[in-house]
């Protein structure tokens, strides 16, 4: 299920990342977004999602939220 459709404040495990660009994938990896890692949506604001990965908060847009499957 894409991250854009999951419930708030529940921790999920990343299943796959549906992005073609290798550098973006690598970048997400270095933040800790890769299959098997945990991810939580803290809030949804308009078209932005605030997520928690490891011990940091990030804001991502809807396109990226759709590309991350949990």
């Amino acid at each position, binding site marked *: 299920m894409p991250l854009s459709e999951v419930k708030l404040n529940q921790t999920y495990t990343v299943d796959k990342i549906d992005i073609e660009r290798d550098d*973006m994938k690598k970048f997400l990896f270095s933040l800790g977004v890769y299959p098997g890692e945990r991810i939580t949506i803290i809030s949804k604001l308009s078209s932005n999602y605030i997520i928690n990965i490891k011990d940091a908060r990030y804001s991502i847009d809807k396109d990226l939220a759709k590309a991350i499957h949990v």
Partner: protein
Amino acid sequence: MRIALAGNPNSGKTTLFNSITGKQEHVGNWAGVTVDKKQGNIRRIYNPSGERITVIDLPGAYSASPYTSEETITKDFILNEKPDVIINIVDSSNLSRSLFFTTQLLEMKIPVVIALNKADILEKKGNEIDLRELSHMLNCPVIKTSAVKSSSNGLKELIDAAHKAAANGAEDKVAQKTDRDEAISDEDRFQHVKQIVAKVEKRKKTSDRQTIQDKADRIVASRWLGIPIFAGVIFLVFSLSQAWLGPWLADMLVGLIDSLYVLAERLMAGNVSPVLQSILLDGIIGGVGAVVGFLPLIMVLFFFLALLEDCGYMARVAMLMDRYFKKVGLSGKSIIPMVVGTGCAVPGIMATRTIKSIRQRRTTAMLAPFMPCGAKLPIIALFAGVFFGENGWIGTIMYFLGIAIIVVGAVIIRKITGDNSTSYFIIELPEYRWPSIKRAFLSMLSRAKAFIVKAGTVILVCNVIVQMLQTFTLDLQIAQNTSDSILAIISSPAAVLLVPLGFGMWQFAAAAITGLIAKENVVGTLAVVFSISNFINTDDLALVGDAAAVQSVLGIGSVAALSYLVFNLFTPPCVAAIAAMRTELESNKWFMGAIAFQLAMGYVLSFFVYQLGTLFTTGTFGDGFIWGLAAVSVIFGYIAFLMFKRKRQDAYLPRKAEV
């Protein structure tokens, strides 16, 4: 000995750098403030031996494989320049991510010392980290630091440890090499980090719970309140600097400049030729004084910008603006160069390095100078004060007009390049914190110093030259009438082009031209050519005391004044910013296009402001309407041609998919 500072973005590298070198490099509470390497010598108190120790502050990176261009700087420096020791700054509140980069640094065969930074925040949260165990598991020294504190901050111990590690470096290198010879996969590396964190860290609360900070985010980035809050903040910053606090401070400073003028006049009376006296008094004290008089306004702006950058709001503005900027082919990351550019366009343009997409990066670099920078503030303050009563509003309007122009510009550039790709947006949201008054104050002082140096050099020289050029005629006689002067003769052809904009007088043309050297020159030159000794009145606490008098000297109405203000703000920036643009655009074609676009933008906007303004106030168009309309039509036609041409080609080309 050379020490490199490396670590994740926003882990406090530059704050630590400033503390140990005594420098005042730009710091802020968001990821990607430092986009270039900075160098400094270590302060004596941290270096009792007196050995020459150079510290290099590197842009933040999440890993050794660079994603954006400023991360490449970090990687290249470590690999090619081989510093004697790396101080790896680790944000102690985010070990599980930061140590990933650490494990990569440890394999580079350079001694590493870890600064476990933000120790003060760690304590406040009640989390604990077992330093000894961490040091043991990573096989490198770990020192707890809090770079924001001025004492008992662990920096002395850190430098000592770095010194020792560098000395032992040669031996350790061999030992480390045998330890880890085969390549480790990145997954394994993260697994290794997890084991370490599980062993050394004790957390009171997990980080994936809602906090008050998350509530704050929901308000500042909410669909309806986000923009009004941002507008309110900007209005506050401009009002404080231009209407409330700034003018009050400026008034005191101008008193000093005025007494200096009187004193100099008295000293020279009778002893110095009138020509030299005029150059000294009107050119130097008058022209430079007119600029320096606005220094307090700029200082107040810098102070509040520093507070704004320090509290963590910037990343939220990027998140907020992403929704809107995405529609025109930019992303939220483009707003950061613009806010930074409100202080000075040069660092603003450089801040575009954190943008991944090359078209977005170039578009932002050529549009960011449209933001009103600190040097444009005196022009805004002058015209707002002389022609429009309420000062704060004009600044805020110009700020948002700048953003509006950027939006329009982005649409045009996207059409011209035919690159319709969008990019994913992700930005780290740092924790909010109370901004440090002390840091904002120091930042303000250092930028004020730079301003004074500029006023005493570039602006001084320009004013003297302007004063001389308007004193002499072409055959080097003293001009009886300034309209016969060299200055008038060289600026008149330019002035003709400005007639349709409402200010076709050589004085205004001359000021706009000197403004290209430094924007403060606009005010300085106006002061010189109109012989106004001071724009700030000392008798009553007003920015421009006798507005009516200045208005009559300048000889233009408020519509033309607004047009002139717009023209100076939205034409090409100063040479320093133009040079920065050239570097960041990395393409001659883009660079020439950028300058042409900025010239066209300024001209078209001023034309509409003046002609429509005149139409509304008097019922007829202003001077030179037909000629101006012809010029503007040519500009529109050419831009439309570029946009349309690309569209047609696109039909045959497969669409490029960029990130």
